[in-house]
């Protein structure tokens, strides 16, 4: 990590050949998703769709990420406990915390609050188009060791975004555009040579593989998803683009297990741990407030 900070101010992580291979993989994967012709989901792991958690529903989530530190190949572990609550049919609130194993000890580094307002919804039979506005406020006291701005676990700051989600004949596609601004992490000052504002953009596609036909709520669902996540700094123009294939299991229509591998496709900014595995488990409690 130290070596990264001293020498690795700019790096291009993939060769041209590697980028073409990844691009081909991405195109093939997307084509497969559209041609398989089975049900889809929009319960994405790394982004929220424009749909909200249902009113009066509480989702408890535990997200674990195991990312490889490029400096020494050790594993950076982050645990993010999260609570999602549907306040109304249009508004949901998400609160989460950040815990890491930096410096080989358990660090409670901070937390964030996200509110999402679904302002447009056009539903049809097994289809919808929705749009939502959302904002995240994060606090973090972690050491700032990379140029990537990540308010979900690394940086203090605010983010505002717009999401559009289309469910069309059982295929779900969602995209987000957001603006975020960061600053110092309490006593850890923000490096003066780092950009503190960015535009972020994502594209997520989801597909239900099993079951082919729904019979009841007890069937295990298996979803395949691909999420593409990018960031461009407002000053300096440095960017990265990541891809994250996700396999998702839904048990008894109440709980969810996601396993993802996030990999950098391209970057010209300093990132100390861009590639890794994410394992998430969550459980939905419906009708939490009895009337």
């Amino acid at each position, binding site marked *: 990590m130290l070596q990264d900070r001293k020498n690795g101010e700019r790096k291009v992580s993939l060769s041209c050949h590697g980028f073409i291979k990844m691009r081909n993989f991405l195109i093939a994967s997307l084509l497969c998703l559209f041609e398989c012709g089975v049900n889809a989901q929009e319960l994405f792991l790394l982004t929220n769709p424009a749909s909200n958690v249902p009113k009066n529903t509480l989702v408890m989530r535990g997200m674990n990420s195991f990312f490889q530190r490029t400096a020494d190949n050790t594993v950076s572990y982050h645990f993010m406990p999260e609570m999602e609550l549907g306040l109304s049919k249009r508004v949901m609130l998400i609160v989460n915390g950040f815990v890491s194993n930096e410096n080989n000890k358990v660090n409670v580094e901070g937390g964030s609050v996200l509110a999402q307002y679904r302002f447009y919804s056009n539903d049809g039979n*097994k289809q919808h188009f929705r749009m939502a506005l959302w904002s995240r406020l994060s606090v973090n006291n972690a050491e700032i060791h990379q140029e990537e701005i990540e308010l979900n676990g690394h940086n203090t700051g605010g983010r505002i975004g717009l999401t559009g989600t289309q469910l069309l004949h059982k295929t779900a596609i969602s995209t987000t555009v957001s603006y975020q601004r960061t600053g110092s992490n309490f006593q850890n000052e923000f490096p003066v040579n780092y950009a503190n504002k960015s535009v972020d953009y994502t594209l997520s596609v989801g597909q239900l593989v099993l079951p082919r036909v729904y019979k009841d709520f007890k069937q295990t669902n298996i979803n395949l998803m691909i999420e593409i996540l990018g960031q461009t700094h407002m000053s300096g123009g440095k960017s990265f683009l990541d891809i994250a294939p996700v396999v998702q299991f839904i048990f008894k229509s109440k709980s969810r297990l996601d396993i993802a591998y996030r990999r950098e496709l391209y970057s010209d900014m300093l990132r100390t741990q861009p590639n890794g595995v994410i394992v998430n488990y969550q459980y939905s409690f419906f009708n939490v407030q009895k009337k």
Partner: protein
Amino acid sequence: MVSLTSHAQIYKAELIANGLTCSMCSNATYSQLKTISFLDSISTDVEHAKFVLYFHPTSPFDLRIIKSKVEDAGFSVGSLVLFTDLENLEVESDTHHTVGEVTYHFIDTKKQILQKAQGIKVIDKGFVTEKEYKKYLKMSSKNSCYKTGKMENVKYLYHVTVL
């Protein structure tokens, strides 16, 4: 307007929710519907996002609560078809039939006698797609109660059509 003195009641309704495909979404909708006090039980067809609602025989009901619960789950009503004991009732377009506190206003309905187990579909705003609502709004331009959803001295007004 025809008034009935019998205790006519909905015994079941078939609800199709729009905007969802997944079983988790169906379960969220089912969980919301379960909280409705005038429903006895609910059976679910997850594949078609269809819910068969069995009404409590003597409880007063408000169909707008069903719409509200589907929306709370994050979705919308695609269709709500009622199965009532209004059999042998003669109906046609632009007639009102009152049963207790409930008034049914028939629209787009040929003159006929309702048969046993014949469904009547609720066509008020929010119970059909926006496109269907606009179609019925054109048909009922003379009847402002379709637009407002309200009628003087009527507590529960439902605009319906016979399937």
